[in-house]
């Protein structure tokens, strides 16, 4: 037996609280990963990855956004640039694989929010406030 392994007959209450959290976090993540929402999200992400037309539409939009980043910040985008920007934005949002991805993401968000909400309620602390979103 390795040092890290836990004897199967060990009663749960003899495990340290940290080990119990580790095991419970693992089970929770497993359940989430097997959910329909997560599976749909992964499939949508894969379909989007394979969709070259959508990729090009997104890239065109992002390139424009990047080129206008400073002007957007300064609130100094010309009407022509603004119109072009919006056209490119619609261009990628109208791609079926993009729409499907965003829809899948939204459904997964809802599931995760509900789960995190339950955790927060039980432990008396906001889970998302403490942990993230660690984005950007």
């Amino acid at each position: 037996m390795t040092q890290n392994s836990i004897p199967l007959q060990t009663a749960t209450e003899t495990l340290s609280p940290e080990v119990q959290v580790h095991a419970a976090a693992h089970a929770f993540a497993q359940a989430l990963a097997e959910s329909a929402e997560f599976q749909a999200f992964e499939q949508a992400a894969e379909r989007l990855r394979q969709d070259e037309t959508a990729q090009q539409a997104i890239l065109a939009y992002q390139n424009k956004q990047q080129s206008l980043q400073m002007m957007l910040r300064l609130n100094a985008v010309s009407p022509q640039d603004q119109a072009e920007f919006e056209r490119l934005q619609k261009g990628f949002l109208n791609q079926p694989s993009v729409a499907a991805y965003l829809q899948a993401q939204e459904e997964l968000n809802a599931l995760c929010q509900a789960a995190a909400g339950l955790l927060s309620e039980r432990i008396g602390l906001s889970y998302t406030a403490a942990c993230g979103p660690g984005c950007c």
Partner: protein
Amino acid sequence: MTTEPSLLEARRRVLPSQTARISTALGTAFVTLTRDPDEEPFEVFLNVGKAGSETFASAEALGRLISLALRLDSPIYRSERVRDIAGQLEHIGSTTSGASQPSIPDALAEVLRESLTESSSDVQLNTSTSRVVQTEARPKKSLPWSPTARPPTISLSNPLWLPKAQPLMKGNKRKKTMNTNFPLPDDILTTAEQLAAAILRATPIAAFQQAKARLDADAHARELLERYSRTQADLRVRQSRNVITQADVDQLRTLQREVQSNQRIMDYAETQQAAIAYLPAVNQEISQLLGVDFASLAGPASC
């Protein structure tokens, strides 16, 4: 070896600080404010975006210039300077910013204004848009696909992706609201309940729960804390109306000292901080197996 310009007030090796996190149109901003031993603001550090990005550089520059303005030797109180700086920064907007996601300067102004009524050892009091957080131990996001294989533009953390573009969308806005009424499948519900129960047994969380119970049972401490919160809120209102007086500030400081000398309250605040610092490690466990940052997926305004 470099020496500091003589016009700048010398910096102590160690200064207490407070970090606020706030959402901005360009992502989550972390504002760290250090204070001198008199609890006057001393420096501001601003972190937004990814290291090496233009946003990150501009934010760092903004923080450095504010720190410079604060550290310059001047007869003007530094808290007054902070107020003036906040006045200069607030309401600077952009096409991508809005009420829920202000521009970086506007968000910074809000944090600076809040800081005027809080000291470094304040009890954590959340507001609707910013809160004191532990910034370390945030897990790196790993996505279900490898960074090289996945589409270069679709990323949960890509600042150029949604929802940055949302304010520009006409009639096509996607709702991003907390949804705690979403029906959870049985296995997720069960495992989430088990996880919550396990977390409650973890040392930092159990200590926090005990401190909370002691605070709840102490009527005097609760009353003091409520009075302090009310006074702080009143002061914010007076501040926004520009009718704040030295007597108001003195009253708050007196209450603040009273709060700080109350062991029950301080135990609660300290254990709360420790409990908050513990949760990112739990999130990391979940995220590693999931392949995506769970807290970002669960956040009401993830990028």
